[in-house]
């Protein structure tokens, strides 16, 4: 019902269609497909090494895909690369500016790069973020570097903002400020955010959509509420962990005095029919789902 409102006229800011990439190391990103409607925040989640950064590099055409197609704001990300990049803003977990440049020098360089560069807006963000224009890139703290990348992204009128682990290593104040800015950014319904993170508390409230990849494969893509509503965490003593439960569980974590298991909602309902009052059934958080879909079934410690 929520999606009815979206399916009509809302264009996609990003469409990834059957994208694959094989690395010599043996890692493979396999057949990833998802759409992100314009005007929303999507969280890209998964454990380290799942392929999140590879996927982002493919979208930015920093690595060549082996198969599939990617459209950014309706444009092919390779054939229309120049026009795509004009409308894309990126924030990485580490800087992409020359270390010895000052903030002023960064602006000069960006000005040459983007036809839509807005000096006044950059000035405003520098003030707001407390960015000292005379400071060199290498002198900036992690938080300040993230804010510099954000200021650059927001000053050339990017319509799609892609952030790769922007909050890792940031304190709670900087993360808070970032989330505020993202909410402001999408408020007009025309700006869109793709946000990869392993700090899922940032996404638990802010994200509209979740795309979850693990071991190079797509596990889920869709509204965040559907993702969370699809699972429950079931807890109990080891004696309660019988054959049926083991068979139904998506993942089980056992410890000395009990277990917690991830189950699909429909399977939990079926279990409730058997009346097992000794089991504790709780809503699943994003972390629970990632954690328990990545343990080996049955024998994990």
């Amino acid at each position, binding site marked *: *019902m*929520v999606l009815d409102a979206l399916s009509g006229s809302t264009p996609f800011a990003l469409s990834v269609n059957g994208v694959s990439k094989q690395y010599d190391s043996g890692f493979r990103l396999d057949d990833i497909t998802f759409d992100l409607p314009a005007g*929303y925040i999507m969280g890209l989640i998964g454990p380290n090494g799942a392929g999140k950064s590879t996927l982002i590099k493919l979208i930015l055409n920093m690595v060549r895909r082996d198969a599939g197609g990617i459209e950014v704001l309706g444009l092919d990300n390779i054939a229309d690369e120049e026009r795509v990049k004009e409308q894309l803003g990126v924030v990485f977990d580490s800087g992409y500016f020359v270390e010895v440049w000052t903030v002023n020098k960064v602006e000069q360089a960006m000005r040459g790069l983007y036809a839509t560069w807005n000096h006044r807006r950059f000035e405003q963000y520098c003030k707001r973020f407390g960015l000292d224009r005379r400071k060199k890139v290498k002198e900036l703290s992690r938080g300040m570097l993230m804010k510099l990348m954000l200021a650059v992204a927001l000053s050339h009128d990017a319509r799609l903002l892609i952030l790769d682990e922007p909050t890792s290593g940031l304190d709670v104040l900087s993360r808070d400020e970032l989330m505020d800015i993202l*909410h402001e950014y999408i*408020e007009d*319904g025309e700006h869109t955010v793709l946000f990869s993170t392993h700090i899922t508390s940032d996404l638990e*409230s802010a994200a*509209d959509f979740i795309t979850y990849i693990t071991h190079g494969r797509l596990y889920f893509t869709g509204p965040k*509420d559907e993702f969370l509503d699809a699972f429950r965490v079931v807890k109990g003593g080891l004696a309660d962990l019988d054959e049926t439960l083991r068979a139904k569980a998506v993942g089980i974590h056992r410890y000395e005095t009990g277990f917690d298991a991830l189950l699909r909602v429909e399977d939990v309902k079926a279990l409730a029919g058997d009346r097992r009052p000794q089991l504790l059934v709780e809503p699943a958080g994003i972390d629970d789902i990632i954690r328990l879909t990545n343990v080996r079934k049955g024998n994990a410690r």
Partner: protein
Amino acid sequence: MRLIISSVSGEPIYEQIKTQIRSAVLSGELEAGEALPSLRKLAKELRVSVLTITRAYSELADEGVVRNIQGKGTFVMPKGNDVMKAQLARRVRKGLGDVVAAAKAAGIPPAELHAILDETYATQDAAGDRDGR
């Protein structure tokens, strides 16, 4: 309008928003025809996802509490409209079901239950905000 989100209540955020807007309408704090904050503005203010607010608003519209006018916004419906009446009646019946079950368990006969009901009704404000629960 006062609208706050609890992060520990366990109740989904869209439900919390629905409950608070519904009580504001029933108590008369929000009047018929009044506009709710825009979806995206409210999402920003509360720092929740746009889809969460979308869901709260559209479910309130299904209940007849508000109405969405394409391109204009979401507006409070007159309190006594049919959809809303039916919804409220359903809630009353549900509440009474619980009451009757409790009365039976306690061995309270219908006549006594009626008396209790009359008494409770009289002591509560006409505008009582416990809306049937």
